[in-house]
């Protein structure tokens, strides 16, 4: 079928017919080991700074304290799964407010889109945990085993005593980092100092040990061995990038128009009639993804910009201007070729759209958080029976009030029906006093049954043709006199009914 359409369409085929093959193509291939060479420069320094900041945030955050008063945890950031609470400094989120978390994820996604549209895979290159931990692991490797050439030699060497202790020491340090990574993770889910003691004493819950073990294992293997394979084969993000780049996105690029034709260059030789690239391979040696940036944009490239630093070092040495490899847009080489001034277009419909969306979502979240009430009143009307006729002809409706006291102190409330003084209130657990009072414990939910009876005349005067009348249940906080209202319906037999 496809063959027919290809012939009918007369599509030109790329490439030449395959030569006769003595061997079938290989179905799988071992990972080609990559030993990135150390570089110095602007972007390397930025990456060190990002590593310190991101790892610092990760390891230190659970130990930050935040006083919320008695009865509440004093950990600044805490995901309290057993009690279904999420604490983030001054913010406290209950399960029914999980939309804040959704908003946060949407914000993160939009920020990622914006950053990618502007500067390509900056997330991948600088702040992705996979990149940061891999960078850290490579640093350890270099510290123990030496730089690229020594590591290659060691890798090829037989298992001598030297190789054993060097590799062993590397793995031991990796393992320590991995354990610390897994250990820090669980501190986000329980009181860090308590859990730390329990972990050491062997008294922590099995889930904590299992989490630490799982994170240790993944950190060790992903950071130590799989490295760029994670980015190339496991992560979906590289595949999505294509839709985020455009001709004005800054990408780590080799300036072929300046570099070509490339070739070795001896000191003192003229630079006329040739490109600046001396084909030294420094960019390839520095690449943690093991690719050649001079081949153009590639799926494997995480745009960590280390090749820029590597090339700059060489350019300095041979006395040519820096940034033969640089952040530039796809439109720039063409502009240079046609003699135009390369333009920088950071403000584009795409980036404006992402920015506006970010503003809207963060605005909504800020509004939600700032106006968040420390009390939620939900009213559930009884479904069966919808209403009950009483001896004196009045009608009674049953409700369940769910009162969520999000404050960290006990609160007393009085229940009333707004604007209906003739309403009689009664509650099986509170009695039928003129004013129903109840208390809700700090940071908890209380369900209260409430029976509301209305005399026939009131109902007749207010009900609609379905027999329904709107009522508003009011809770008054006795201490603060704040009033919380929830509108609901009162059902009665229809005007046409008996």
């Amino acid at each position, binding site marked *: *079928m*496809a*063959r027919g*359409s*290809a012939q009918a*369409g007369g*599509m*030109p*085929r*790329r*490439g*030449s*017919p*395959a*030569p006769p093959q003595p061997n079938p*193509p*290989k*179905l*799988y*291939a*071992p*990972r080609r080991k990559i030993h990135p060479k150390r570089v110095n420069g602007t972007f390397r320094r930025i990456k060190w700074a990002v590593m310190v900041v991101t790892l610092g945030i990760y390891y230190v955050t659970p130990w930050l304290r935040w006083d919320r008063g008695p009865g509440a945890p004093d950990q600044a950031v805490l995901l309290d799964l057993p009690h279904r609470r999420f604490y983030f400094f001054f913010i406290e989120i209950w399960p029914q407010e999980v939309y804040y978390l959704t908003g946060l994820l949407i914000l993160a996604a939009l920020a990622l889109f914006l950053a990618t549209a502007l500067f390509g895979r900056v997330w991948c290159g600088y702040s992705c945990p996979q990149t940061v931990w891999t960078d850290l692991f490579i640093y350890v490797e270099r510290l123990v085993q030496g730089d690229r050439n020594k590591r290659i030699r060691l890798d090829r060497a037989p298992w001598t005593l030297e190789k054993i202790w060097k590799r062993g020491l590397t793995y031991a340090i990796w393992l320590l980092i991995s354990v610390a990574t897994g250990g820090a993770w669980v501190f986000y889910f329980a009181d860090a100092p308590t859990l730390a003691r329990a972990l050491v004493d062997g008294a922590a819950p099995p889930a904590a040990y299992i989490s630490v073990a799982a994170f240790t294992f993944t950190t060790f293997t992903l950071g130590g061995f*799989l490295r760029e*394979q994670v980015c190339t*084969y496991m992560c979906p993000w590289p595949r999505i990038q294509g839709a985020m780049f455009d001709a004005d996105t800054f990408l780590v690029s080799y300036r072929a128009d300046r570099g070509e034709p490339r070739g070795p260059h001896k000191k003192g030789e003229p630079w006329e009639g040739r490109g600046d690239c001396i084909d030294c391979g420094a960019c390839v040696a520095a690449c943690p993804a093991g690719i050649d940036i001079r081949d153009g944009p590639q799926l494997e490239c995480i745009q960590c910009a280390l090749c820029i630093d590597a090339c700059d070092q060489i350019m300095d040495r041979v006395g040519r201007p820096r940034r033969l490899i640089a952040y530039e847009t796809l439109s720039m080489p063409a502009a240079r070729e046609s003699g135009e001034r390369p333009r920088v277009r950071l403000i584009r419909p795409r980036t404006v759209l992402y920015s506006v969306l970010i503003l809207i979502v963060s605005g909504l979240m800020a509004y939600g958080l700032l106006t968040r009430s420390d009390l939620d009143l939900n009213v559930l009307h*009884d*479904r*069966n*029976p919808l209403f*009950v*006729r*009483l*001896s*004196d*002809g009045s009608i*009674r409706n*049953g409700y369940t009030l769910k009162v969520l006291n999000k404050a960290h102190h006990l609160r007393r409330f009085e229940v009333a029906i707004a604007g209906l003084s003739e309403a009689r209130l*009664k509650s*099986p*657990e509170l009695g039928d006093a003129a004013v129903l009072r109840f208390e809700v414990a700090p940071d908890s939910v209380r369900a209260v*049954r409430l*029976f509301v009876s209305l005399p026939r005349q009131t109902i007749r005067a207010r009900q609609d043709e379905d027999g329904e009348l709107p009522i508003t249940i009011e809770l008054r906080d006795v201490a603060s006199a704040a009033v919380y209202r929830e509108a609901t319906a009162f059902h009665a037999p229809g005007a046409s009914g008996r």
Partner: protein
Amino acid sequence: MSTTPDRDEVTGIQTTGHDWDGITELDQPLPRWWLIIFYLTIIGSVLFWVWYPSWPVWMDGEWTFTRGLAGKTARDDVAAEMAQRAAAREADLARLEKADLGTIRRDPELLRLALANGASAFGDNCAPCHGSGAEGGPGFPNLNDDDWLWGGRLSDIEQTITHGIRWEADPETRLGAMPAHLRDGLLGRADVADVVQFVLSLSGRARDAEAAARGALVFEASCAACHGLDAKGQTFVGAPNLSDDIWLYGGREEDIFESVANGRAGVMPAWGGRLDAATIKSLTLYVHGLGGGVEEEPAAAGE
């Protein structure tokens, strides 16, 4: 779809030979670790077969399955969990059994247990007649309202549930029935019609004031013994209040005529022998809490 593999001229890599409108695909080898993980999953599945129950086997004339080294099945887990819950429930019921109604009512935790237990027992045993919302129906009382034939205190409700109403097998059952005044010749047709008008007049609905006046005399002679002179009913004989807005058998003129002429004697089974004491207590508290429960008199509350 072409089947001739080509070599891609940019990368020099063989293509798969598949061609989608001019788009071809490089035939890249799979990473080896991927393959290794695939083999590990196969090994893992074998471990699962060995560790958990998996294969059906024909043994001793019936189909069964390999037990697995774990020594238990997911069914065992469920059974263990169910047994654990049943044991917890037994303990809860024992606590309810020991406590009296007043104690349960004052203890929030016991009350919560009783109400949950009562709600489920109500659905199983009472809902067929009284309705799932206890809303009742013609002949079956609404248990939500404030009108009680036999009393709405906890003790009244417990008595009713335990011994039933007009349930002959139980010697302590509640007795007292509305006689068939016309059918059994206790009243003439005219008297019945008059007394119906009188009953209607109690809620201001009499059609014929003269008949109602005559009916008042009939009522005093024939009905007041049970329903009381004020027609407000008496719970010790289960006689309903005729002056209120609640009608068990309907409040229209023909419904009332039917009640007077042919009598009413609905039956409720005695649950004493069928449900255990804890469940009856739970049901009592549940029904009492539906909204119409009446408080014990102060003297009786001290029991």
